[in-house]
């Protein structure tokens, strides 16, 4: 899952890493008590600066997604269903914003995107 960071993006790498973990928690890919990779492990796998991983984990801890047990690593905390839901909604908005920006380049408006979305998901459009 951690291959998904994009060094090209203007979003700082620590934010990308933190966001990736939040999404995994929201999707229940990570559950309470699961261990995150160690800073050392993750920085080697992603080939990023260890301080980038430290910063990501610190932000996740501040937001209540993980807890650091001293000397033992970083663990996923129990996260309320509403928080997971919020995270999914946030992610959905991000995806839509990206989609609309891309569409705008081709002069495609929100109505056309809406129709295409309805078709693709098999929801009948009301016209």
């Amino acid at each position, binding site marked *: 899952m951690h291959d998904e*960071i994009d*060094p*090209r*993006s*203007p979003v*700082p*790498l620590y934010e990308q890493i933190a966001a990736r973990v939040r999404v995994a928690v929201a999707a229940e890919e990570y559950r309470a008590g699961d261990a995150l990779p160690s*800073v*050392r492990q993750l*920085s*080697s796998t*992603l*080939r*990023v*600066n*260890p*301080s*980038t*991983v430290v910063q990501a984990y610190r932000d996740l801890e501040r937001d209540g997604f993980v807890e650091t047990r001293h000397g033992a690593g970083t663990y996923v905390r129990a996260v309320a269903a509403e928080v997971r839901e919020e995270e999914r909604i946030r992610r959905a908005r991000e995806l839509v914003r990206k989609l609309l920006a891309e569409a705008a*380049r081709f002069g495609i408006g929100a109505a056309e995107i809406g129709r295409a979305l309805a078709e693709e998901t098999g929801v009948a459009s009301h016209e």
Partner: protein
Amino acid sequence: MSEAIEVRGLSYRAGRSFELRDVSLTVPRGSIYGFLGPNGAGKTTTIRVLLGMTRRDGGDVRLLGHSIPGELPGALARIGYVPERPHVYPSLTVADALRCHAAFHHRWDGVWAEQLRRQFELPLDRRVGRLSKGESGKLLMLLALAQRPELLILDEPTDGLDPMVRRDVLTALLDYVSETGATVFISSHLVHELERMCSWVGVLDHGRMVAELPIDVLKSGIKKIRLTDTPVNGHHPPFEVLSRGRDAFETETWVVRGWSDPMVQYFDTAGATVREVVDLDLEEVFVELLRSGREVTS
């Protein structure tokens, strides 16, 4: 605490063709500092001057608080160096090279050196001169790491290595950094490789520093803007235009610094439409910085 590397007003001249002019750089402790520049920019010369191997004409150099060249021995004991070209005698075997380095460095970690040697698959009895380019690159990194330095100065440590070896070498380096918090000063023209790792970037071109910034700052404000219709001149843009031209599809394209989204307004009033605001990767930022730096000086 002092910075890991502090250079002020460094100058060096070799004949007429090449000089380092007023080079200043600051490498904070614990940072991974990417020292970028095209071939021939003076990166290796700068590093040689830092390490007291080439005598400078002016300026101040401090490494880990030691003034150079006066306190060179004290500094070198705490610094691991990977030179651009192998500096180990070709007639030594790998085992000899390890013993030789162990004798010179009082913090040498023999256990870890052996572990890395196995991991890097370096045969003990192979002569250094007979190692492949990849093996040689791994040996040099091993020698620099096993002395457990507080500062690593790496001159193109992965140049010419294949992607697998490059990955092995960088993984070992990052592993060491996470364990110890050591500072890394790494020169390269392989910009992509540094993009993920660096917290700071310094750019050298024609012997002069063009930029020195935290990487997030460097990348966040620079954008490529694709437009339909060329804006009417006369308005002063709220951003700095680094270059303007046409892309492969003949679309008007500007590269700007200091961009934020509300500035789209500027194009609206100037009679143009912003089609797209594209993020640049470090390599593109690098190219743009060199280009604008050269325009200013010429």
